[in-house]
């Protein structure tokens, strides 16, 4: 898969403070890459460095293979950015504002492009209203509109759904999903379930350092803190010794209407279900149910950001 963005050992220092320290990760073409981290982790700083707005203190950022900086013209028109605070002129009307941004980027068919973007984001009905008078949801949509109005192939969205009502969140999320068909998106969010729904790759950042980066499923596998199994055996049956499969602990046992239920916590990081099934059956036991519970992204995220404090 093509890497369209490569962040290589990038640091950002302010006087007396290190905002981002030696971070590296990459974003594959055509993916929605989730960028996760608690407040103050360095997400917005990193996103602004990637957008070529903030200079890096060290390291380099490559977009489509070319190194970008605040001085380079290369990345202009290639990146669409919706920062945490959407850059909106409150005294402008929606349509005029979008036309202004489109002209800045040298869009040829300004009216056609702006109309199309307003149509897709359902902004037509408010196109002649002052941005300052719009609701938070509409403002955010106008912010997204300015990021896509010049059709940049790479989008950076910094917490785009933050502060929106549930209906608006769903609509915006669906829209972003639709955008991914022909754009690559770097997407930061606090809402982990949102990242799980939208993203196929993630980078977790904490205190200015990358804690994990890669495919979501890969990170799940890599950072799984053991495996929790729920096993149901026939009434009156007891669990055989499972120490061949690694260290384990029966954390719960209860007798239900039609089975003996055991909840077992394994330290093992690999999925041992199929071997376990064979083992139990070889002991002549009735296996009623077997269910594995893998840790959610939230668990991984909490683990990353808490244990490394």
């Amino acid at each position, binding site marked *: 898969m093509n890497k369209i963005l490569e962040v290589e050992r990038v640091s950002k220092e302010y006087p007396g403070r290190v905002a981002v320290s030696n971070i590296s990760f990459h974003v594959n073409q055509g993916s929605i890459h989730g960028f996760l981290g608690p407040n103050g982790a360095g997400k917005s700083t990193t996103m602004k460095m990637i957008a070529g*707005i903030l200079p890096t203190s060290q390291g380099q950022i490559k977009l489509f293979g070319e190194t970008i900086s*605040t001085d380079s*013209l290369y990345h*202009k*028109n290639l990146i669409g950015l919706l*920062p945490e*605070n959407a*850059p909106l002129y409150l005294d402008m009307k929606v349509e005029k504002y979008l036309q202004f941004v489109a*002209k*800045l980027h040298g869009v040829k068919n300004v009216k056609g492009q702006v109309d199309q973007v307003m149509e897709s984001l359902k902004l037509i009905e408010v196109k002649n209203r002052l941005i300052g008078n719009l609701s938070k949801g509409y403002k955010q949509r106008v912010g997204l509109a300015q990021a896509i109005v010049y059709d940049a192939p790479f989008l950076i969205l910094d917490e785009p759904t933050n502060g929106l009502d549930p209906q608006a969140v769903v609509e915006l999320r669906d829209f972003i999903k639709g955008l991914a068909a022909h754009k690559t998106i770097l997407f930061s969010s606090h809402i982990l379930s949102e990242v799980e729904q939208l993203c196929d790759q993630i980078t977790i950042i904490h205190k200015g350092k990358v804690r994990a980066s890669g495919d979501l499923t890969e990170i799940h596998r890599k950072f799984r803190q053991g495996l929790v199994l729920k096993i149901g055996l026939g009434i009156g049956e007891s669990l055989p010794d499972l120490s061949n499969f690694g260290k384990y602990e029966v954390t719960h046992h209860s007798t239900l209407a039609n089975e003996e239920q055991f909840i077992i916590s394994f330290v093992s990081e690999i999925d041992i279900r199929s071997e376990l099934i064979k083992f139990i059956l070889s002991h002549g036991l009735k296996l009623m149910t077997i269910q594995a519970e893998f840790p959610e992204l939230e668990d991984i995220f909490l683990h990353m950001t808490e244990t490394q404090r």
Partner: protein
Amino acid sequence: MIWNVWKKETESYFASPLAYVLIGLFSLISGIVFFNLLVTYTDGIQTLPPEYSQQISFVEEVVLKFFANVNFLFLIFIPLITMKLFSEEKRLETLDIYWLSPMKEWQLVFAKYLSALTLVLSLLLMTCVFPLVIWGVGIKDLNLLGSSYLAVVLNACAYISLGLFCSSISGNQIIAALLSILGVMFLWMISWGGHLNSNYIVAEIFTYVGITSHFERLLRGVLGTQDIIYYLSFIFIFSVMTVKSLGRRNW
């Protein structure tokens, strides 16, 4: 691109009450000033004996004093015009729009400079009725009026460049305006320092660095190369400082 930003900024000025309040106040105050100067002049002529009254010059007492007063009004009006140009953008974090576009810092500074100049020229347009009065009383000196307006416009250009720089270093409009007012006052005080200093060389340096001597020479129709160089380098230096300040992206 510059035209696009100039248009947006100028529309933004005239979409808000600020432009109209400034134009109204400027017209009112400059009208009162002109009227007072006229009344003082005519009173002087009528009350003094003919041998003294003939020595009172209309040009000195009304025309030059009027334009000197316009320059004084700029001390307040121009910082009010320039204060928001960058500080507001910094506060709203809207400068990102430009940094993602192919627009360069100097182009943005130039566009904003032109929009501020447009509003300042609109203020000056309101004073055009006074030259008609001057013309009416028989002072048909186009050179005098031309150089007076040139002096005022060049001073305005210098103040705008200073105001833009002040706006680029602060995220607070009020602080930007205050810095700008202090800056202009400092330029005046340097000139006064030149008059007060007994050391010839120091006095000459102070006089050259201060803006007043250049303004006064232009006002009297003396268009010297050194004055033009002074104004151009003043505007250039502050514009470059503004560009550098924006380039640091330290907000």
